[in-house]
């Protein structure tokens, strides 16, 4: 097969997985571009921030941060905390992103929640180039977000459509991918720990501060479970 054919085949396999993200990202991107321009920023602000930051929830936070007093160190700490979950994705993808050559940089740079979830859980059909599949998912998601942001920024305050509730598309995507991941597992200790620990921390610490405690509890739990899990063969 020619390289061109490889790429086309991988795109064909990858695109269906990104359709929910297409809907979710275009919608959320529009919401972000719209919100930031409505807050009085020039359209170039959300567009440039989406191109460079490319982390949805952080971009919404950016709008507020740019209105506060200048404090770069606090901004850096806040960003590290909000995005700390990416550390988990990185460790989870160490192996999958290892042998992909020059694609690696963009795969990591563009590792948004949704992109991670697809590249982590999707069953890539046999014969399809895994590197290209994952790169296409990453590139397509990135483009969806940029298109959304640009449309939102350009529309400003012109459009009024009742899209209330459409953002649930991303929740539904995560639930479905969780079920797909579940099917692939022999034991479900880790999945249940992830759900349980995060839910407990959300209830205890509230929705602003639960991610770091949840990550610590998950790490501690997985460390304690290492021997039993390794024995049952989940670790290999």
């Amino acid at each position: 097969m020619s390289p061109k054919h490889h790429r086309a085949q991988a795109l064909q396999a990858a695109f269906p997985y990104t359709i929910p993200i297409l809907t979710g990202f275009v919608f959320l991107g529009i919401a972000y571009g719209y919100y930031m321009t409505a807050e009085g920023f020039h359209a170039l602000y959300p567009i440039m921030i989406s191109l460079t930051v490319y982390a949805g929830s952080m971009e919404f936070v950016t709008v507020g941060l740019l209105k506060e007093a200048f404090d770069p160190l606090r901004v850096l700490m806040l960003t590290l905390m909000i995005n700390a979950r990416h550390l988990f994705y990185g460790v989870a993808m160490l192996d999958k992103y290892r042998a992909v050559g020059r694609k690696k940089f963009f795969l990591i740079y563009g590792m948004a929640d949704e992109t991670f979830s697809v590249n982590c859980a999707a069953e890539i059909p046999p014969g399809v180039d895994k590197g290209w599949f994952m790169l296409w998912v990453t590139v397509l998601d990135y483009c969806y977000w940029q298109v959304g942001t640009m449309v939102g920024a350009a529309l400003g305050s012109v459009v009024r459509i009742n899209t209330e509730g459409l953002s649930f598309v991303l929740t539904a995507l995560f639930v479905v991918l969780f079920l797909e991941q579940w099917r692939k597992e022999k034991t479900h200790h880790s999945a249940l720990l992830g759900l349980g620990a995060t839910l407990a921390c959300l209830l205890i610490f509230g929705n602003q501060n639960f991610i770091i405690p949840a990550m610590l509890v998950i790490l501690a739990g997985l460390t304690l479970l290492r021997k039993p899990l390794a024995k049952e063969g989940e670790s290999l």
Partner: protein
Amino acid sequence: MTLAQELITVGMIVLGTVATRFLPFLLVSRKKPTPKYIQYLGVVLPAAAMGLLVIYSYKDVNLLGGSHGLPELIATLVVVGLHLWKRQMLLSIAGGTVLYMLLLQFVF
């Protein structure tokens, strides 16, 4: 803020985001074998991280007020039910989302 201060602020946000995404890959050496513990985490973490992500996507649901998370619960059950029944990713997602929008706009 001046334009320079705005650029530095956004620069810090880019730096922080890129750092959290690249750090694991930078810390694991290409030459030395990955430590056993990290290998173990690499195998078991994806499932836990997906669980975290699921809960994370419900973080703004208010159980004590408003509709008490009822629309989210119903729509989630429909997503799970559809997926266990047909296992068609797009059908499960579209079904749950359309129902959620209808619930939010007409029922709750």
